[in-house]
């Protein structure tokens, strides 16, 4: 359990770091494109497409860390008033379906990516095969689902609600 916890925390931090680097690169690409367009009259081909894909990667990679830090908006002022045993029950009642659903979403996105990879679909302007970005988003949802398992474990085992 401890290893699982540690692994999830490490993986989501690493993914978030990668998300930050990709975001910085995206902003640089956008500005470079403006400069190229304005000064050299030569915009960077495919910026529009790439920025979209890169943003998807940023979001996917940052999902899990965001969940670990409890940053996905939720309304807790009602459940906060419940006694601890009740609260544990409600956490399980909403956590389990959320976890199953997130695994399902991850699987769905993954199989969408596999379909595109198999059929060789590429983007329209720069003909880039973009299935790797889809896999990144699927990986993000997979780790996100695992953070929900982690918080469920903490509820059941420790009860130290956080």
């Amino acid at each position, binding site marked *: 359990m401890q290893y699982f916890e540690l692994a999830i925390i490490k993986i989501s931090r690493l993914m*978030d770091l990668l*998300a*930050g680097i990709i*975001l*910085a690169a*995206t*902003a640089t690409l*956008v*500005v470079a*494109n*403006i400069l190229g367009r304005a000064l050299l009259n030569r915009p960077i081909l495919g910026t*529009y*497409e790439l*920025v*979209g*894909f*890169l*943003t*998807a990667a*940023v*979001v*996917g*990679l*940052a*999902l899990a*860390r*965001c*969940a670990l*830090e409890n*940053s*996905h*908006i*939720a*309304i*807790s*002022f*009602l*459940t906060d008033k419940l006694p601890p045993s009740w609260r544990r029950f*409600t*956490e399980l*009642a*909403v*956590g389990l*379906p*959320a976890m199953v*659903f*997130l695994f*399902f*979403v991850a699987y*769905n*996105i993954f*199989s*969408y990516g596999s379909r595109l990879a198999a059929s060789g679909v590429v983007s329209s302007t720069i003909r880039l095969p*973009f299935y790797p*970005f*889809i896999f990144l*988003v699927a990986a993000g949802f997979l780790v996100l689902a695992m953070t929900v398992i982690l918080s469920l474990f903490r509820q059941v085992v420790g009860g130290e609600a956080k």
Partner: protein
Amino acid sequence: MNPMTAGLIGILIFFLLIALNMPIAYAMALVGFFGFAYLTTLPAAFALVSTELFSAFANYSLSVIPMFIWMGFLAFYAGIGSRLYNLAYKLVGHLPGGLAIATQATCALFGAVCGSNTATAATIGAIALPEMQKYNYDRSLSTASVAAGGALGVLIPPSVIFIVYGIAAEQSVGRLFLAGIIPGFLLMFLYMLAIYLVARRRPELGPPGPKFSWIERLKALRGGLFEVLVIFAISLGGLFAGWFTPTEAGAVGVFGVALVTALKGGLTLEIIKKSLADTTRTTAMIMLLVASAVIFGRFIAISRIPFAMADWAAALDLPAFAVISLILLIYLVLGCFIDALALILLTIPIFLPVAVTVLGYDPIWFGVIIVMVVAMGVITPPVGMNVYIVKGVAKTVPLELIFKGVWPFLIAIFVCLVLLISFPQLATFLPSLLH
């Protein structure tokens, strides 16, 4: 079961799930998926949570969100806020309630480089609260003035809430940004007036600070104001002039803030790392919410609830003013419980057709009004986001005391709303110049 009933049951389940502390984004996606599967086919619903979810993330028009968020966090860590406060403090600090008045000016100016009300409240709170404590300000007035002032950052562009409204309502982000400027400054003046009147009546709440000579004031002018104006002019000026897409304006803003900070010798790797970490976290939160709202919105659309709402509003035979007041009242009540972004994403598909198609209001104007109403929500109990942020800065002040102090500001927002409803040009004039 007919689609309407399924839609209503879906909405009920959604509210039940979020009341039980399920993150709002999960609940929207979950209910949206099952509702859509029920009303159409399972394969169609599968596509919704794979193809469409990815397309929502990989949408160029959404890439503007991380850019403006990063710009705001960079400005936050770079200390632009404290230089702005220094200026406002030297200009108006000597008036009754002057430090709280200076806080409003700082929030408005900082809002011009920061798109988030919570970041604005956190930045200005950390700077202004210790100063107000030094001059023995009433803690209820000082904390509430920061919480309320944070909402100015939402109206004054750039603004993440306007971007999200623009996405939900399919409106131009540039026009929405322009529309927020006059109402934003109007609200700032009304806030200042409210503070002045409160402090005039009970001087012990906001004792005047020191008075500065004009030379000192002019010196302070060089501090933050100049850099903010330059960044604003290049980034948002470029957007308004049509040179940049919103995403480009955001990226230019990021580089603008970084450059200005570097020129002052303040740009460290630490600042970049911290601001990036905050940005990716906030971006993930907002984009998951937006993508989930797309799924939920599909379900609501095929349940035909929006049409039924529009028909119902048309059949009411009430003056437009009464219907819009009713809608605002609903927003005000929901805004007390649900976060502003989530609330806008959730309700725009339902209320926008009523306001625009049935009542004939301008969708840009409606956006400004809605943003202003949710700005009330961030300072009202029980889930006033900005009040919690300020509480995080001023840990010793009880929440109730902050909520007690927000009354003058709520009245100011209300007056501003009445003015905006009576004179829609306040919001629509600047965007109309774009044509």
